[in-house]
């Protein structure tokens, strides 16, 4: 892998470089791999990368039915944070956040990871109490978090509606300063490039259509580009997890829903942090290019269409104006949707499945972008060692029969 | 006798207007309302008690000079009458339905009734209601439950154009404000 750097850029700009090379190869699929990862989103690519990097597995393929990062990785609102309530979640998200902090340099790809802080507004006493509970827990889990007064909040976010005479005035907030945003596409591309450099075959336009088993063991896959044998298979297909589990013969406690996002036209910087509001129900950041990137809730119904309905966008707009009156005359440039896989307890499923040699990572729902490196790390470890990584263990599939759910509805009150 | 307080008593200012008056908005203060749940053989019994058959077709009404039954669901009606008449209605219905499973519940105070009349009443409602109120679709014998903006309502067309809007009491102030706001484009006048 030719390293990226300013010097390289300069040399190429003035014609002294030897040109740019492809970031990853596009090989034909081989007939057999040690590990096949299904799903070329951030999580799948990160899994492959860490399998190769941390565990020395060399013969790996990532199969992606469309284009790399074209699932939720390429359509999310890029919020990264770790201030989750329960210890289990805090541990895995914080592990992930720590990885984010070194990821640009690790991958030698600028992910534009911007730790600009994330403010969760509180508009009611109850919300503030919930925030307090979370912040106390975060701190004891070693996660930076603070409770801010109304005044501190308003000072930090000058365009926030500070009136006390509105329906839901801001009464305080919680902030995680190490939280922020990253460039979503770059995450897929950066992992792909780095994984490719370690020999991982990244195969696009390759849809898995069947999962072959020998007894209770997975032995391979049928794909739109032919049959592929595999000793181990990781299913990392976000919105399509239920479909793939169906191919492998087991069920998941998952429903797929549309989640939308939208961006405004680019404007000069007005918002230097990420703001979320559960009560007024929207969240927003401003991208480096200048658009406001926003989202809110899912559509209630199941769907595999990567689009949602108009009322959600109207609600985002009205919430945005409630929070930031100055946006009213700005314009929404584009809206789109993704398919998110929602678990009953709003926590993911990571680990082994009823099929030997088959592992799954799904259920990140509206908030798994932030977990990309961490989730890849623990799933790689789980696959390599055929036992749950300690951080993954609580997120096993069998928590649904034991009843040991990890209910993060509160922390995920507004989808992100 | 104590003072009775209608949901909008503190809100309504008769004579208030926000433009050339195209629409009249009135608070009907109290309208007798009885929620009737009944099925099977009770249907006929209820019809006898009322003096007319319950409307069985969805979203229709039936009635006479004293009351009007509005279809709410396959086994549910709202019987609307003048305030004060509901007790008698309840008594008659309960007596007639003694042997049939039923629920006859006084909900007179649960809802406010706002009347919006005038040629522009329909476009005003169209600002917040997804129903098609075109007269071809929503004629005089119709009734519908729906939403106006964020309030659940029962919409009953009135003679001469316009609608009675039945709305949960706690939402009445919101709906009132909403109607005034939505009607401002045409001018709306509050009548006493």
């Amino acid at each position, binding site marked *: 892998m030719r390293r*990226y*750097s*300013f010097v390289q*850029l300069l040399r190429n*700009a003035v014609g002294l470089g030897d040109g*740019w*090379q*492809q970031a990853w190869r596009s090989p034909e699929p081989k007939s057999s791999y040690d590990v096949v990862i299904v799903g070329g989103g951030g999580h799948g690519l990160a899994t492959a990368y860490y399998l190769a990097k941390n565990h020395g597995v060399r013969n790996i393929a990532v199969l992606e039915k469309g284009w*790399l990062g074209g699932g939720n990785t390429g359509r999310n609102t890029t919020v990264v944070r770790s201030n989750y309530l329960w*210890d289990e979640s805090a541990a895995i998200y914080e592990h992930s956040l720590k990885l984010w902090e070194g990821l640009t340099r690790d991958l030698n790809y*600028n992910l*534009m*990871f911007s730790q600009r802080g994330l403010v969760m507004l509180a508009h*009611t*006493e109850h919300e503030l109490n919930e925030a307090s509970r979370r912040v*106390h*827990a975060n701190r*004891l*889990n070693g996660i930076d978090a603070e409770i801010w007064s109304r005044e501190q909040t308003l000072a930090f976010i000058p*365009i926030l509606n500070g009136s006390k005479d509105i*329906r839901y005035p801001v009464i305080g907030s919680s902030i995680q300063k190490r939280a922020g945003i990253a460039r979503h*596409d770059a995450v897929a591309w950066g992992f792909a490039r780095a994984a490719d450099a370690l020999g991982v075959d990244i195969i696009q336009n390759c849809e898995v259509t069947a999962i072959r088993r020998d007894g209770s063991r997975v032995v391979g896959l049928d794909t739109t580009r032919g049959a592929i044998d595999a000793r181990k298979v990781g299913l990392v297909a976000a919105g399509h997890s239920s479909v793939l589990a169906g191919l492998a013969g087991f069920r998941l406690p998952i429903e797929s829903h549309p989640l939308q996002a939208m961006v405004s*036209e680019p*404007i*000069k910087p007005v918002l230097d942090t990420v703001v979320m509001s559960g009560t007024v129900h929207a969240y927003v950041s401003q991208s*480096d290019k*200048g658009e406001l990137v926003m989202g809110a809730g899912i559509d209630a119904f199941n769907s595999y269409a990567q689009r949602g309905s*108009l009322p959600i966008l*109207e609600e985002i*707009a009205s919430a945005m*104006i409630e929070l930031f009156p*100055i*946006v*009213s*005359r700005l314009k*929404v440039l*584009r*809206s*789109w949707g993704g398919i998110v896989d929602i678990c009953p307890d709003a926590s993911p499923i990571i680990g082994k499945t009823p099929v030997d040699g088959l592992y799954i990572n799904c259920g990140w729902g509206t908030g798994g972008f932030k977990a990309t490196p961490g989730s890849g790390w623990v799933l790689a470890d789980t696959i390599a060692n055929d036992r749950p990584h300690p951080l993954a263990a609580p997120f096993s599939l069998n928590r649904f*029969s*034991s009843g040991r759910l990890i209910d993060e509805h509160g922390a995920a009150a507004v989808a992100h | 006798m*104590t003072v*009775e*307080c209608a949901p909008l008593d503190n809100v309504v200012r008769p004579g208030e207007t926000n433009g050339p008056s195209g629409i009249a908005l009135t608070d009907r203060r109290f309208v007798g309302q009885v*929620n009737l*749940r009944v099925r099977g053989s009770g249907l006929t019994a209820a019809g006898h008690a009322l003096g007319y058959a319950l409307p069985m077709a969805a979203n229709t009404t039936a009635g006479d000079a004293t009351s009007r039954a509005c279809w709410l669901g396959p*086994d549910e009606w709202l019987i609307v009458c003048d305030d004060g008449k509901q007790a008698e209605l309840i008594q008659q219905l309960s007596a007639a339905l003694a042997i049939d499973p039923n*629920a006859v519940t006084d*909900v*007179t105070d649960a*809802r406010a009734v706002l009347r919006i009349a005038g040629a522009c009443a329909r476009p005003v409602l169209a*600002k917040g209601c997804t129903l*098609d109120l075109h007269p071809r679709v929503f004629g005089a014998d119709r009734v519908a439950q729906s939403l106006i903006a964020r309030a659940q309502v029962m919409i009953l067309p009135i003679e001469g154009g316009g609608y009675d809007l039945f709305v949960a009491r*706690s*939402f009445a*102030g919101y709906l009132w*404000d909403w109607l005034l*706001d*939505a009607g401002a*484009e045409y001018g709306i006048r509050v009548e006493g």
Partner: protein
Amino acid sequence: MSQDFRLAQGGRIDREKPLRFLFDGHAYEGFAGDTLASAMLANGIHLVSRSFKYHRPRGIYGLGVEEPNALVETGIGAGIEPNARATTVELADGLIANSQNRWPSLRFDLGAVADLASPLLSAGFYYKTFMSPAGGWKIYEWLIRRAAGVGHAPELPDPDRYEHSYAHADVLVVGAGPAGLAAALAAGRAGARVMLVDDQVEPGGQLLNTPYAINGRPAPEWVAEATAELDRLPDVRRLARTLALGVYDHGYVACVERAIPVSQGRVRWRERLWRVRAKEIVVATGAIERAIIFDGNDRPGTMLASAARAYAVRYGVAAGQRAVVFANNDDAYRTALDLANAGVEVAAVVDLRHDLSGALPGMARERGLRVLAGHGIVGGRGRTRIKAVEAAPVDDPSNRQVIECDLLAVSGGWNPALHLYAHAGGKAAYDSGLAAFVPGAPAERMTIAGAAAGRFQLADCLADGARLGAEAARRAGFSAGPALVLDAPEPEPDSRIGPVASPSRGGKRFVDLHNDVTEADLRLAVTEGYRSVEHAKRYTTWGMGPDQGKTGNILGLNVLSDALGQPVPQVGTTTFRPPYHPVSFGALAGRETGDLVVPTRKTPMDSWHAEAGALFEPVGQWRRAKAYPKPGESLHAAADREVRAAREGVGLFDASTLGKIDMSGPGAETLIERVYCNNFASLKPGHARYGLMLGEDGMVKDDGVTARLGPDHFHMTTTTGGAAGVYVWIEDWLQTEWLDLEVFLTSVTEQWAVATLSGPKARQVLGPLTDVDLSAAAFPFMSFREGRVAGMPARIFRVSFSGDLSYEINVPARHGLALWQALMESGRPHGITPYGTEALHILRAEKGYIVVGHETDGTITPADLGMEAMVSKKKDFLGRRSLVRSGMSGPGRKHLVGLMTKDPARVLPMGAQILERPSEARPVPMIGHVTSSYHSPTMKRGIAMALVKNGRARMGDTVYLPLLDGPTVAAEVVKPVFYDPEGARRDG
């Protein structure tokens, strides 16, 4: 002030109505009927903006929504709109417009150094650098952010108003060009309810922009007639200035209407979002002309041919005095002829095609225009305005000739506007003859007419419209009306279209003008492996600007096709997404902002609370009195005072918000037995019981007191927040699973106003008002009586959430206020004190009563709360099976306990986390958290409730709570009942 470039005649502007406007502080004049762009051009303004990345000078490029360059700021102060397209802004007297994204001035913009550094700033350069030093990104990012962005957001809240309206249509026709007008007429004549929307001020579409003829007369005459007929049809609604933004499921279409601009004062509303539910949609949105790729194809003075022609024909403006037309298709010759007819000198038509045998080139030649066949434009001169172009044979690009001009009209062919079709799920097919995507398989409820379907002859557009309009009406249930007879002969253009790129000599060749994406950028993306069209888009940002690639998409696809060696259809397309054209937040939000953002539900006594100066708090949609502070009194002091009154004397609380469900029928008892986990079968009429409701997952879902009014008749109460959910949930079971139960539910939440009188003197206050015997023997705790209170019919429940003697008095809502006043009056001698939710919470916490949502969070079982004794062992109930799952019991579960801080003055913060022993380690295992915590005026100390792992085994233990502001506080684990554990007071 002179409009030097206004043609002497022609155009649809009103020369009698001059309008003044300012651009960058200079005063100009235009006419009514102008857009800002046409008025600027009439005044010779060609430099209007700077590009996004390289800050290159840019001019007006298009005619309408496709405009990639001419983004300006309009208005001042609170009325600012950034990124307004000069091409879509209707001119109004006094309009103020300013250029954006330049400093210090439009003409001299320092940002243009980026243009010099452009070799460094190739596609995706930022992914390859700014990586060191670690942490350096913060600074790089700061710089990048300041350089990026386009316009400035307003600094003040928007003073304007935005409306929403729903509408229903049998046939919605989008676009009022010839195809749309014909469709609307055909459908309207059939009697269908038609809605015809068009984003232009006037109907007519392209008929306004080119001199076509219909039925032997100038087309605008037909437009006027058709419009008049439509306006006469009773069920046709025609909306001008209305843009269809997006098509959603089941015929739902969002359109935004702009108000007619006014010179003075405010418009009544600025924009109105129409949400149309259509049985059938006819898309007649026409086609958008595209550009051609050539070196330096962004000089001000370069514009789409169709735009140059429309400025002349429709607005009477010469976009230049000497024009060169650059073409790859026959339609461009119409532009050449129209320009020439309008008095613009046409220096040459440069056509990439060699063989020009069609009728239109012939007409141009006959007219004496110079036509350079097989030539391309390979360069040009001029920085802030084009001065000349360099044309050269396609086969010999170095053989240049310089043609002086001040207008370069470019026509690369037309792209059907398929956006709405794509929103509806349509999959476009590539038509290589047009070098464009055309509609493929039909989309739901939608047909496509005219140029939007790739049918560019006027006669076809009219015929399409008439046919599809009638068909749509028929599908919506109407039989055809009188047929439309329309005849529109015109010269047939040659269907062979030329390439969309001109030979290059190495200059900048833009495929996306707004985002400054060049052909080289796209090629670089392919080289680097970003081969999917979606990757190329994202890597280069091609098509991601404010114009969403309306003119540049096909150009880029052709570049990719070439670079990948794949035909265009195989390269694929990117996805069209709503909105078709950017829409303001205001329009999307409508009136759902400010006071109307969410309903404020009020109780029947609300006006009293407000007059008493209550401090309100939002609880869901309700507003509830939190406390009634006296002047100068803090919330805490007020709550303290209120608690003391309710403990020592008597307090009055408005509990009207509680959910109430009337349940009656022979199955009522069974139903209640199934939905509560505790026993209700033994409850006698006239009595009430606290019930705990679990979800099927065994977790506490809701709670409340339910009274048995009669053998088959119950009155259930739920929490305020749970009311709707519980009702829907029970109906679900009744309607879908327990069909055998004959029970009717009626929500009576709003029927009853509820005033809770509590405190030792409650009886004295209520006694004089009621005929009900209040003696403890006659009316014991947990029973209910019907009677009269102050002359009003009332249901009185003797229940208590404060732990003291307490009556919950329910009266029909109309009496709520009177009841409240009567109780206040009767209580005055006893010092009755109204109390709010804050005091309520303190009172119940002193008693250790839970609040669903505080002590529970969806993960808490009855056993966790210490309520397992309540849970019936005998009956089946919802959630029972879940309680015996392995994770639901045994060690490690959290129990509800009380906490007493060692320092009695200390009030623990809500949510504080609990440690077994103090520790500085992080992470450190936590054993629980504080669920409720208050200063208890009764106990005169801080009290708290908490959920603690194995809490019931820790009674008497000390636990530690590290607080955010520093100290770690020690507290003792105690039973969660602080006050009157025996319950003597409530039974009094």
